[in-house]
């Protein structure tokens, strides 16, 4: 590794290169306006850890992540992260202003209900108010989507049937608000919305007939003419139940409701003149897009999620508290750093300035890397645990200098010149630094891989700064001290290296 005598030129190149890379990358990230992605405890926001109530496979967990991500994004929350950690699913949305609202919405366990469609109702007026299920009025006779009003007749047209398309929208419901998810009870009639080709429509639905548990498997597929349909298999128990519901709603619409929203409201067997058993399977057609069909299939098969989730821990942090924690963390870090620098400069004199410079480069590089990583979203967010990891690493970083400088003093004690001490001293110090940093890195990597929650953020930043320490020791401290050592005329000034290493002069 270390050649016995390194050329002056290569030392200078290495020194300048490190300085340029360090401060250059800092300047770049600053000019790009990148900053570290602050964690929940610093930025405020929301974090929930969900645990599946039953053991889940990796595939299931990945589906949960997809569904929750869609849900969180659907709420207009930006920068939210949903990921699997161990066997848990972690949702974190730093920077959310009203964390409790978001928490309420994602915390709900979505359910799939099948309900008969009673009639289409007018959109809610501005003065619309929610009413209790018991006082929900019935559909006007002219608007009810009954078998007789719909008048479905199988024929040889493209659709395979004709029906009465002139049934209107019941106006008497305009003053009744859409049922909220809290009031959406299986046994009650509800008013829910459906988005049909980009437009919102409202329907009055009867009490639930069946839940998503009747569905065994559901998948998106294409029919003979290439249109997307959702095919499903019923469970053994679900099959006769489904037949009973379908028979009761024959030639009428049956709504599939997920999370208080109508996903689809297919007609039951419109192309047949009499009801026939579904024999455990069925198919929903309509004007589905590929993704629409797939979403519906997932919703039908899984209700909402492939596994039931139970929140292990939820945390909301107000932006003000987060901000004050950030200030406290930064304040503590800077105060600690200042104390450390003061101490080493008093103790090592000129060599203390080397530490000051070295920490400066390390800090610049670290900040640039953390900012860049925060920009790409590959790294854990920068939380208080991470701040602590960095503060602890001040000790480890400065220790590398101390190990080296104490070696230098040893070398000087055995009568060597400063010039020859710096090379020999570095060689032995470098071994020590490598061995010690390996242990520190080992701890960081293992913690990162195995632990959950904040421990990971801590491990990440500890590991990062340990690597940085190795890098800076070799490419910055070594060339700088060796160059200084070669220049040094022993004892020429109080700030010279010899003053810091001097085994003589009293120091109290």
């Amino acid at each position, binding site marked *: 590794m270390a050649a016995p005598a390194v050329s002056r030129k290569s030392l200078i190149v290495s020194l300048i290169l490190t300085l340029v890379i360090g401060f250059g990358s800092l300047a770049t990230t600053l000019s790009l306006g990148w900053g570290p992605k602050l964690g929940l405890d610093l930025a405020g926001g929301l974090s929930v850890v969900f645990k599946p109530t039953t053991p889940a496979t990796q595939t299931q967990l990945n589906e949960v992540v997809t569904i929750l991500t869609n849900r969180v994004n659907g709420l207009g929350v930006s920068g939210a992260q949903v990921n699997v950690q161990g066997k848990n699913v972690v949702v974190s949305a730093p920077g959310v202003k009203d964390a*409790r609202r978001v928490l309420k919405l994602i915390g709900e366990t979505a359910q799939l209900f099948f309900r008969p469609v009673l009639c289409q109702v007018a959109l809610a007026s501005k003065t619309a108010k929610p009413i209790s299920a018991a006082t929900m009025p019935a559909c006007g006779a002219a608007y009810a989507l009954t078998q007789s009003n719909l008048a479905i007749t199988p024929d040889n047209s493209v659709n395979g049937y004709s029906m009465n398309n002139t049934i209107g929208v019941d106006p008497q419901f305009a003053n009744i608000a859409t049922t909220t998810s809290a009031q959406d009870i299986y046994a009650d009639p509800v008013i829910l919305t459906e988005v049909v080709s980009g437009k919102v429509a409202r329907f009055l639905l009867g009490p639930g007939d069946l839940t998503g548990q009747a569905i065994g498997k559901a998948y998106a597929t294409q029919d003979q003419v290439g249109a997307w349909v959702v095919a499903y298999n019923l469970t053994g128990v679900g099959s006769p139940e489904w037949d009973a519901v379908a028979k009761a709603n024959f030639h009428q619409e049956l709504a599939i409701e997920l999370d208080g929203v109508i996903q689809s409201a297919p007609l039951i067997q419109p192309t047949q003149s009499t009801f026939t058993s579904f024999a455990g399977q069925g198919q929903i057609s309509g004007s589905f897009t590929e993704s629409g069909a797939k979403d519906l299939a997932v919703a039908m098969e899984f209700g909402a999620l492939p596994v039931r989730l139970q929140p*292990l821990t939820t945390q909301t942090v107000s932006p003000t508290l987060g901000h004050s924690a950030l200030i406290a963390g930064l304040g*503590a870090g800077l105060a600690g750093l200042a104390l450390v620098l003061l101490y080493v400069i008093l103790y090592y004199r000129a060599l203390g300035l080397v530490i000051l410079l070295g920490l400066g480069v390390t800090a610049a590089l670290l900040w640039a890397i953390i900012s860049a990583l925060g920009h790409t979203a590959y790294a854990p967010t920068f939380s208080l645990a991470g701040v602590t990891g960095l503060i602890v690493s001040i000790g480890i970083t400065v*220790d590398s200098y101390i190990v080296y400088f104490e070696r230098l003093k040893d070398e000087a004690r055995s009568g060597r010149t400063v010039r020859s001490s710096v090379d020999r001293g570095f060689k032995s110090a470098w071994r020590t630094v490598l061995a010690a940093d*390996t242990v520190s890195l080992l701890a960081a990597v293992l913690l990162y891989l195995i632990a959950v929650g904040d421990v990971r953020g801590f491990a990440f930043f500890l590991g990062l700064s340990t690597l940085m320490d190795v890098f800076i020791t070799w490419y910055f401290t070594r060339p700088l001290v060796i160059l200084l050592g070669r220049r040094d005329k022993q004892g020429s000034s109080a700030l010279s290296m010899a003053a810091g290493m001097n085994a003589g002069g009293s120091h109290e």
Partner: protein
Amino acid sequence: MSDAPVIEAPTGESGPGRFGRLYQGLTTIDFVGRRKIWFTASIVVIVVGLGSLGIRGFNLGIDFKGGSSWEVLAPHSSISAMTTAVENAGLTNPTVEKLGSQTYQITADLNNDSTTVQNTITTAVVNAMAKEAGKNSTQVSTSSVGPTWGGQVTNRALEALIIFFIAVVLYISIRFEPKMALAAFIAMIHDLLVTVGVYSLFGFQITPDTVIAILTILGYSLYDTVVVFDRVRDNASSTNAILKSGTVTYGEMVNLSMNQTLARSINTSLVAILPVAAVLVVGAYILGATTLQNYGLALFVGLTSGAYSSIFIASPLLAWMKEREPRYRELAARVARTEHAVLSPRAAAMMGSDQTQRIAGATRRATSMVIPRARKQKRR
């Protein structure tokens, strides 16, 4: 400092102070010879701590017991006003604490209630606290923890810890030697026990942050020990004149290594503890950031113990184990001194150079040619 006999090259200076002696490499502390004192001190601290653990147990935070907590910045409130406010909102037996100068934290256990009741109470408390603080309800932080979460964090951390133990013992065994791995391991367990004991003794609250901090301590304790052992290995290596001269026993060599790294150990410990103390003071007591306080406290206790154990536990332990090896027992017999001699780093540095080897040769009987077989160098 030490009244043990001292081999010391004349320095031509008269009586520098303790710090000066350290600075100039004149320390001659008999770390190995007085191991009984160090070991006894540690055992007393550990036994008291474990005794307290057996009687009082831990003060576990809500992350381990499960429960809910709320936090708000309320410059003009008081503990009693806050308590009244949250009790009116439906909390029974809340713990109300003031953190720092302005932050109020309320904790309560709602895990016996149904999810719906929990949500209702949580919201009611948020609103009550916001009103009391004169703030918007989004300014209140909440945290609710199921009873199994903290256990899970700890279990994963313990899993990581056990794998880390194995990896580190392997690494030190290969890079250094198995006896060093064992001594470092025991020193680390020492730090773990001391920290755990102190936490129980003073009733400090255990949170997942504490677990993180303790993991750090263990990593740091090892790091510190590795630095010290690296010096021991260096002094024991075949290219080094100190053991070769046949005038110094293994224990004396360890003693020398300790004194050589003493300045480094003290500096490093100071440098590590200074920022942590800053975290504790600035972060926690002035600004009321609980997380910082938790980290700072555990780190402070652990780093102190870690610095102590690498000097006073790991190294004397290593010397004791090594001196039982036949070749070092023979060496000790040959050196044939009844008391421990302590070399100062400066004297040792002189031994390395030519003129002092002659001095050493003259003062001791002729340097024996039977040299302890030095370990194979693993220099890269």
